[in-house]
């Protein structure tokens, strides 16, 4: 890559973000209700200085983070296990796949009333379960796809090299599926954020979704933007962490082409 190309590559994202900010600023200047970038920044500073209902801003962010991380860890472990089971146990798949197919397209939010009845509104459990449902489906479906679409030739190679069934799974099928599984985790994470905000809006006590819900009650669009930006930043941070994990786990995907 030559030098001028590299500079263009660095400038383009900056320009596009600036453009969106300018558009936002222009739209807000034409409209009394819509807060602009400046008002949003002021609102953000105000929130830090004068916490809403005595809950500091970082507590909202951290509670959201905590919920999504716990849900994410459970969804990864359970989702990958179920995906593998679907991929390698034909009888299990025959029995459970129809059930999974019915549950999979349901919006996680449809479960909220049921879960609230079951575990109550207080504490994190209800939100974590809803986020978990949001994440786990993509993890299951991607793990299953990765496992069941492994190139037959690689499996044959493994067999002629003397691999047992267990070795084929752990040494060929699973490592070969890691990129697809990680893609599932990323997809799941974005559904997870959607579920998180919705769950916190409906089952209110704190969190970024709580802030967004609050903004709706008071037509506080600046607060809504603060919430939106916090979600955007937090989910980018988690995606970045997942990308770093992918670099660690799959160095062969990041080779310099020769």
């Amino acid at each position, binding site marked *: 890559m030559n030098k001028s190309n590299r500079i263009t590559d660095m400038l383009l994202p900056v320009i596009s973000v600036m453009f969106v900010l300018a558009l936002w600023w222009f739209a807000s200047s034409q409209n009394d209700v819509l807060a602009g970038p400046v008002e949003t920044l002021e609102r953000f500073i105000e929130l830090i200085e004068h916490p809403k209902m005595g809950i500091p801003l970082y507590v909202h962010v951290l509670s959201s983070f905590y919920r999504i991380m716990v849900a994410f860890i459970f969804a990864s472990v359970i989702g990958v296990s179920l995906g593998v089971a679907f991929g390698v146990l034909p009888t299990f798949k025959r029995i459970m796949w129809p059930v999974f197919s019915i549950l999979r397209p349901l919006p996680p939010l449809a479960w909220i009333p049921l879960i609230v009845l079951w575990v109550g509104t207080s504490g994190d459990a209800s939100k974590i379960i809803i986020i978990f449902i949001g994440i786990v489906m993509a993890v299951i479906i991607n793990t299953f796809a990765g496992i069941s679409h492994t190139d037959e030739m*690689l499996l044959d190679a493994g067999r002629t*090299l003397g691999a047992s069934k267990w070795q084929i799974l752990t040494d060929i099928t699973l490592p070969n599926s890691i990129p697809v599984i990680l893609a599932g985790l990323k997809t799941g994470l974005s559904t997870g954020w959607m579920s998180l905000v919705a769950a916190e809006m409906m089952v209110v006590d704190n969190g970024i979704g709580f802030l967004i819900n609050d903004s709706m009650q008071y037509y506080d669009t600046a607060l809504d933007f603060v919430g939106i930006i916090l979600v955007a930043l937090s989910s980018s941070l988690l995606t970045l962490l997942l990308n770093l994990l992918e670099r660690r786990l799959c160095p*062969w995907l990041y080779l310099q082409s020769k």
Partner: protein
Amino acid sequence: MALPSVKIEISKLSKSYETKKGVVRVLDDVSFSVYENEFLVILGPGQCGKTVLLNTIADIEQPDSGSVSFNGDSSVGFVFQRYALFNWKTVIKNVETPLRYRGASAEECTATARKYLDLVGLKDFESAYPAQLSGGMKQRVAIARAYTSGSDTIIMDEPFGALDAQTRYQMEEEVLKLRKTEKATVIFVTNNIEEAIYLGDRILLFSDKPSHIVNEFVPELPRPRNRTSPEFMALRDEITAQMDLSL
């Protein structure tokens, strides 16, 4: 010369597949013997069911009827046309694979893998990933891996079919070089007549589907063989004529 002992006895193999166009018979009553430590070339046109034959010998596929019996060790080191390397493993980890499956110690794995990587001229590439290698180098890794398995039998399924002509010549030399140091029975499949004559101790010419053996050739040519010698060309003409007839 004493009679060579039989390593693999292939007897009356038949196999059919159901396709949308009906049942296709791929192997038709195929019988032959493979002798200990010979370099047997199976030569046949494009889609003639050679891969099915090899997969049956390697126990990857089951025949409809007939049998394959080995004298002694029945494991095979298999070299696939499309390399079948594990992209997520480095070169040396790929080559170690069969030993690790057997539970060999880490030292043994590394030492044996290094030995074969050295033999195929890749000792400087042990920590590269397959994606960083050229086609010829990938196939060298696959060949080293097949030999590392320690099997008495090495099967190569059109291993150089995807390579350019020059690389193909280099790889043919590579395979013959390995023959000098490593005792093994080699079954080598190709659709290239020149390659068959250059490499083979014995050549079995197969027909198109349903495949059966058309003829057997034993090139009485001194090694290294000269691809442009009159004897080489004569045999080439003879096989070409019969291959065309069988199409």
